């Protein structure tokens, strides 16, 4: 990854979009530097997909400005299209073609030439662990394989900016890890990634910067660390054998919330190893025995509750 000051790969100011009288994006500002991973985080219906569709020239917008890879999205859509790759929420692969044919189709549409196109297809099949299924119809692929094929198709044209719209939604944990690994390799290769996700963990794993989208507005922008620090949801939960120990621990630790019925304490913490060690040291010095310890890291619900005052599931929007 380069640390030199880089140019904007995606620059958006005051972006607005409504469907009928429903405002989906209500004045969004974004700045994504070249060679970084940016994650747009939000629940279903927050407007994430709409943002991707606008930036990838798929749909128009009502107000504001958007530049991608140095080109104006509404005035030079073809220049934008030549620079980007899009992998949507629902895999856009051709089910009646084999994996290899899907890739060769993309190579032909990028005018790579016959020999180059086949070489590129073979290379991507290898890289995405699809070589064995190269001659099978895409309709026979598993969910994880389809996503990998979809992403491989996106990469045929060597895009400099890649939009990934919820790339791991609906995947099993192992396929999700594989996708993450692939995405990290892409960033290492210098491309810019614009990722939407509902999972804080995913944004945390992959993104340099995260923006939280809620009801068409950005409610927070920052690094994963900055966001988590702003969220009070992270804590360590301690359970004790009796009320005496609970009382002693509460006195020793100070700033905690106490539940006498369940004999537990909640200690605000980022859940890191150093913080845990310090916590346990303090309990040890006070000679208090702990029956059970569990770490709670903030999740998307915490982020939303903290930033917007309402939990995620309350705002499923019916389209």
């Amino acid at each position, binding site marked *: 990854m380069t640390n030199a000051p880089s140019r904007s790969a995606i620059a958006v100011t005051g972006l607005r979009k409504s*469907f009928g009288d429903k405002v989906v994006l209500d004045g969004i500002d974004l700045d994504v530097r070249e060679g970084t991973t940016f994650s747009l985080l939000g629940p279903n219906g927050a407007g994430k997909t709409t943002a991707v*569709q606008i930036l*990838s*020239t*798929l*749909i*128009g917008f009502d107000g504001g400005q958007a530049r991608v890879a140095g080109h104006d999205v509404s005035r030079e859509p*073809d*220049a934008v*299209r*030549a620079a*980007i790759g*899009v992998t*949507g929420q*629902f*895999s*856009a*692969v*051709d*089910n*009646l*073609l084999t994996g290899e*044919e899907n890739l060769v*189709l993309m190579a*032909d*549409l*990028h*005018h790579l030439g016959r020999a180059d196109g086949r070489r590129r297809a073979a290379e991507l099949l290898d890289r995405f662990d699809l070589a064995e299924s190269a001659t099978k*119809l895409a309709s026979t692929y598993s969910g994880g394989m389809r996503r990998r094929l979809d992403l491989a*198709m996106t990469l045929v*044209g060597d895009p400099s900016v890649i939009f990934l719209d919820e790339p791991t939604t609906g995947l099993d944990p192992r396929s999700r890890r594989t996708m993450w690994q692939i995405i990290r390799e892409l960033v290492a290769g210098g491309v810019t990634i614009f990722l939407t996700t509902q999972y804080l963990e995913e944004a945390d794993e992959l993104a340099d910067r995260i923006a939280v989208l809620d009801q068409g507005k950005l409610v927070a922008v920052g690094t994963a660390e900055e966001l988590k620090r702003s969220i009070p949801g992270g804590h360590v939960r301690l359970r004790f054998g009796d009320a005496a120990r609970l009382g002693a621990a509460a006195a020793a630790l100070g700033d905690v919330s106490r539940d006498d019925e369940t004999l537990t304490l909640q200690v605000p913490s980022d859940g890191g190893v150093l913080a845990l060690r310090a916590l346990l040291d303090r309990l040890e010095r006070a000679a208090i025995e702990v029956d059970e310890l569990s770490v709670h890291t903030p999740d998307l619900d915490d982020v939303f509750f903290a930033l917007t005052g309402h939990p995620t599931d309350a705002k499923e929007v019916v389209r």
Partner: protein
Amino acid sequence: MSDAVTMLRRNVKHTLRNPGALIMTVGLPVVLLLLFVGVFGGALNTGLGATPHGGGYIDYLVAGILLMTVGYGATTTAMAVNRDMTEGIISRFRTMAISRASVLTGHVVGSTVRTLVSAGLVIGVAILLGFRPTGDPVRWLATIGLLALLTLALTWLGVAVGLAARTAEGISPFTLIVQVLPFLSSAFVSPDSMSGVVRWFAAHEPFTPIIDTLRGLMLGTSVDDSGVIAVVWCVGLAVTGYLWARALFRRDPIR
């Protein structure tokens, strides 16, 4: 242009991979042919009196069956376009720097070729069953030309319907129209033998002059002014289908 060729190649692969569609576009007309010649042929022959040039009922029938072949072909195209839309591959194409028209052009050209092949096979089966067309090459060229024009018209309409339908089920009204209209035309019996409103409808709907023209061209009988009316209908339907499809394709793909 090369993008359109790539898309055409894609459609040819789809057809070869999905032989069921081809079998349907050839098989259904052949079944109808057998049904009407074998089951109703005798009775209808009596009812129609002698056909204009004195041949059997099959000579009368083939033109209408060819039109239905083209109709089935267009239905297949509507389904293929709709599948592209709902599977999201068209969204992928839209975010690539390729000619927008190439996606639809690929479908239309591929479908036209496929339908003309089907029509050729149907004519072959008809000849085996006793169909005796004229040998005049000029009239055959005109027949192929009109069939191609009709295919283009119904295929563009099919493409538009495929784009407009939210799901595959949304195509069924089109399928129904394409399959029922021939029965209310001169495909199976002369409109003169029908009654009242049906007769008026059959005489004025687009398929009747098209079928009459195809029949006249293949049998070597006179075509009269139905030839001009047929061409006007075909061009009109083709332009309507094309403009409709283009407008739908340019629309934001948000549903």
